[in-house]
């Protein structure tokens, strides 16, 4: 289904890529990125608005825009909201973890440094592997999503977009690190919200809310309606709330194991800014986006009696009702969502490997050597992401999400409980991670019902480690005290001015 000419697709793909690279190049010149701390933590001086915009837009995935509209179509009026709260809860879980790490270890740059101090080398290695896996997966999923979209709308070969997208964000993270990521996020936040400010009222005018309601009543009451759903006008529809719970489980690992989100927390100018930025960017600005997309785009598709083969394609169609070229504007939104999410995780990989792998293994490395490593290490990851994304042509995004959800839920308990409770020991953490991972995968493979096996795989992978840690920790308690973290010296050199006020009550 090619909707627009191919040349237009190439103009958009390469034009936007050039703009984003230009923004990163400007950030590089303006902020003199000449230390590792500047490269990976933005000099720890991101102000409230910039941090909020970056946090909001880096959590807008391609699935936030298209998946929440789908949820509105599947579950009716409660679909978008349930998508939203389900994915927002893990964000709320990240705030205390980030605050605690920053308060107890002001010189830390990555959350895996905290894991090393808290549990020891074995659990640290587990987390390096899981965190790298999450970030590669996030980058790869954005490349796959963009590949499908450009292929559907412009007929551009999937593999071309799957290569270009990761290589573009890799190049600007190589150049400007966290600042390149954050300022591109801000630029894209402004563009994305402006587009939505205009597009949503126009779509509503085209759909007419009164007609929408009448058509939704038909969806509820008429069994011959192709989208007949008796619960479409029930906000407290049970299926929609179960979907919300599944979203919590799937999103938890994707957020709390992604160093990219900690980068913004570490980069915020003060701890109070960190807290406000996550509440403002996550709860106030991000949560209503899936809610409004589900209500307007999802219910719009239901009311128009659309019966697409793939429900993901409803959103560009509904956008095209607003005005000529509405579908094109929608594509810009999704492309920006893909780039901002991808660059967040690539910046996270850069920080994790520069600080917690390279500097830890070579304590004598000079600032220049660390900078060179930080700039080069993103390329193997960028190329690997492009290669994996190309190989996934034809694989469903939902399938990828579910499988990886099971894998990444397993270490969440060790991180969450290890931050809040001094009792869990290294042994208990390792047992819980391995048991959760193995049992989650086994449940997914052995439960024959394909409609619920993914759900139980995810739930077991998250809840079993929690249960094991709560039961085993009092039996095999750790001798760890949180006060041990106070003297942590950090791995990289940090300007003392950046640490003013840190670690205070």
């Amino acid at each position, binding site marked *: 289904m090619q909707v627009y000419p191919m040349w237009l697709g190439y103009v958009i793909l390469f034009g936007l890529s050039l703009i984003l690279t230009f923004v990163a190049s400007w950030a590089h010149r303006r902020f003199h990125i000449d230390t590792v701390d500047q490269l990976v933590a933005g000099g720890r001086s991101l102000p409230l608005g910039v941090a*909020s915009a970056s946090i909001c837009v880096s959590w807008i995935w391609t699935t936030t825009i298209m998946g929440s509209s789908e949820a509105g179509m599947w579950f009716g009026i409660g679909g978008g*909201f349930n998508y939203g709260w389900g994915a927002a809860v893990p964000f709320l879980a990240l705030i205390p973890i980030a605050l605690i790490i920053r308060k107890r270890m002001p010189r830390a740059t990555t959350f895996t440094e905290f894991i090393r101090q808290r549990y020891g080398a074995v659990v640290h290695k587990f987390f390096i592997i899981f965190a790298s896996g999450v970030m590669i997966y996030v980058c790869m999923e954005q490349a796959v999503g963009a590949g499908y979209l450009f292929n559907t709308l412009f007929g551009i070969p999937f593999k071309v977009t799957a290569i270009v997208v990761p290589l573009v964000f890799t190049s600007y993270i190589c150049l400007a690190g966290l600042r390149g990521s954050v300022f591109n996020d801000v630029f894209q936040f402004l563009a994305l919200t402006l587009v939505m*400010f205009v597009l949503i009222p126009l779509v509503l005018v085209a759909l007419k809310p009164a007609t929408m*309601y009448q058509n939704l009543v038909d969806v509820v009451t008429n069994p011959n309606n192709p989208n007949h759903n008796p619960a479409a*006008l029930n906000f407290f529809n049970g299926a929609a709330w179960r979907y919300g719970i599944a979203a919590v489980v799937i999103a938890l690992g994707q957020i709390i194991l992604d160093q990219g989100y900690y980068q913004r927390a570490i980069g915020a100018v003060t701890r109070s800014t960190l807290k406000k930025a996550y509440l403002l960017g996550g709860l106030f600005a991000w949560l209503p986006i899936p809610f409004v997309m589900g209500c307007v785009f999802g219910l719009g598709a239901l009311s128009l009696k659309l019966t697409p083969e793939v429900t993901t394609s409803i959103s560009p169609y509904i956008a095209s009702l607003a005005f000529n070229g509405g579908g094109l504007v929608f594509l810009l939104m999704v492309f920006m969502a893909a780039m901002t999410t991808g660059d967040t995780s690539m910046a996270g990989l850069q920080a994790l490997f520069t600080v917690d792998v390279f500097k830890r293994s070579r304590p004598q490395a000079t600032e220049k050597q660390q900078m060179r490593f930080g700039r080069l290490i993103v390329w193997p990851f960028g190329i690997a992401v492009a290669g994996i994304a190309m190989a996934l042509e034809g694989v469903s995004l939902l399938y990828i999400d579910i499988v990886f959800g099971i894998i990444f839920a397993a270490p969440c308990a060790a991180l969450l409980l290890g931050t809040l409770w001094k009792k869990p020991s290294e042994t208990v953490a390792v047992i819980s991670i391995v048991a959760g991972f193995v049992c989650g995968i086994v449940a997914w493979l052995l439960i024959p019902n394909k409609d619920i096996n993914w759900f139980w795989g995810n739930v077991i992978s998250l809840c079993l480690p929690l249960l094991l840690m709560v039961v085993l920790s009092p039996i095999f308690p750790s001798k760890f005290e949180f006060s041990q973290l106070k003297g942590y010296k950090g791995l990289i050199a940090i300007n003392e001015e950046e640490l003013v*006020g840190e670690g205070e009550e």
Partner: protein
Amino acid sequence: MMSKTVFYIILGVALAWFYAGSIMVWRFVIPELYSLLIKRQDVDKKGILAKEKARRERRKK
């Protein structure tokens, strides 16, 4: 099944929340970008900390 009024209220809440949330972020971003890009001023961490401290003390009183 909800009435037309409740449907309008939910739609209205979703829209109002979206506009309010985004505009709140804009309200902070624009002055910061102006200061960083046009005036080329760096973020004053000590100033921000002093303001936060004063606010905390005011609250204690």
